[in-house]
């Protein structure tokens, strides 16, 4: 989880924080409230997460509950990966 948060955080710093520095935001800070990430940036973030963690993301899941902070994104990815791994295990057991 910590690694997930670090990877997501680094992507945000590299792509959405325009000035040098580590970005003065915490992993719990709301993107909506701080204005750090807007809806255009969310699109880019979603694609990054999809490709890096090989998960599918439904339209209905594009909500602040899952995407409004570094920690929320990491939790979402972790839970989605857990579902994917469980599904793969079921398939393997079935075989």
């Amino acid at each position, binding site marked *: 989880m910590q690694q997930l948060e670090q990877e997501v955080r680094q992507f945000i710093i590299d792509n959405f924080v325009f000035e040098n520095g580590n970005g003065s935001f915490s992993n719990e800070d709301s993107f909506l409230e701080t204005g750090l990430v807007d809806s*255009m940036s*969310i*699109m*880019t973030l979603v*694609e990054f997460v999809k490709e890096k963690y090989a998960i599918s993301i439904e*339209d209905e899941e*594009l*909500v*602040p509950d899952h*995407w409004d902070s570094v920690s929320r994104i990491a939790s979402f990815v972790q839970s989605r990966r857990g579902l994917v791994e469980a599904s793969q295990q079921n398939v393997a057991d079935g075989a």
Partner: protein
Amino acid sequence: MKTSLSKFSPNVLDIDCAKVTAVLEESIREIVFHRLRKKGAVVGLSGGIDSSVTAAICGRALGKDRVFGIMMPENDSSGDSLNLARLLADVLGIKTTVEDIGPTLEVLGCYQRRDDAIRKVIPEYGHGWKSKIVLPNLVESSQYAIYSVVAQSPSGEMKKVRLTAEAYLEVVAATNFKQRIRKTLEYHHAERLWYAVAGTPNRQEYAQGFFVKNGDGSADFKPIAHLYKTQVYQLGGYLGVPEEILRRPPTTDTYSLEQSQEEFYFALPLDQMDLCLYGKNNGVAPDEVATAVGLSTEKVQRVFAMIDSKLHSTRYLHLPPQLIEPVSEVDVTH
């Protein structure tokens, strides 16, 4: 947020059309003749209510012989647009011309670039397909405003696919050629006639950034930018805009599949968005707006948040060129 003491209702948007018209006429004369020192006004006519009311009010203010209407269809335009624009021009008695911008857009690669962008998410998209881009229902859910493309194959099969950031930006950048080329032609005619270019946004569009920078966002004056959409309709009825135009549902007339302004940008029917915008602008509590609009308080709060978000994200569209230091000899305040 303060709560209005009087009951908030849809009637808050009612206007005295005679009074408003008189103010508009005087203001347009002052702006065009005295401030800008031009002889008349050019109006791009789309066949929609905003350009119709703008042309009508300019005709009354400046004289119908000092208003020039330009109709600019392209390959994706609805046939209704040109017919309705012609009808309006006949009713108003203004001179017009038709400039088909389709060939220009083809040369610029507008359609090709748009189609290439759509193929990034729908690889089979091609000749004979139609498309539009749409938002999810932002009032019913808390989803982000992330666009999908809706495409129809030549055989009628419909597909809806979420756009990537890259594809979305490329689709918008390609289709924005349309508004920018139209504005180029408006300024061409304005310059040869020594006229001013009238912009046609209503308040929803102007405030919420529903325009293209240096496209339909560009103008010398914007006479209805302070009026809510429902007020523009009231004026339309008063000024004698044809019924067919008054009844026509607002459309973007930008994509090959018919696309409402609601599904493209505003996420609410325009009369509801008007009331929400008015309520927010005047400090009315969400629960009071909710009663008037017929939505839940939670949904109105979501709409208020959307309005704030759009104000923030589209602020750049309103900014003039940013200078490093002021150039004191240039006074743009008068």
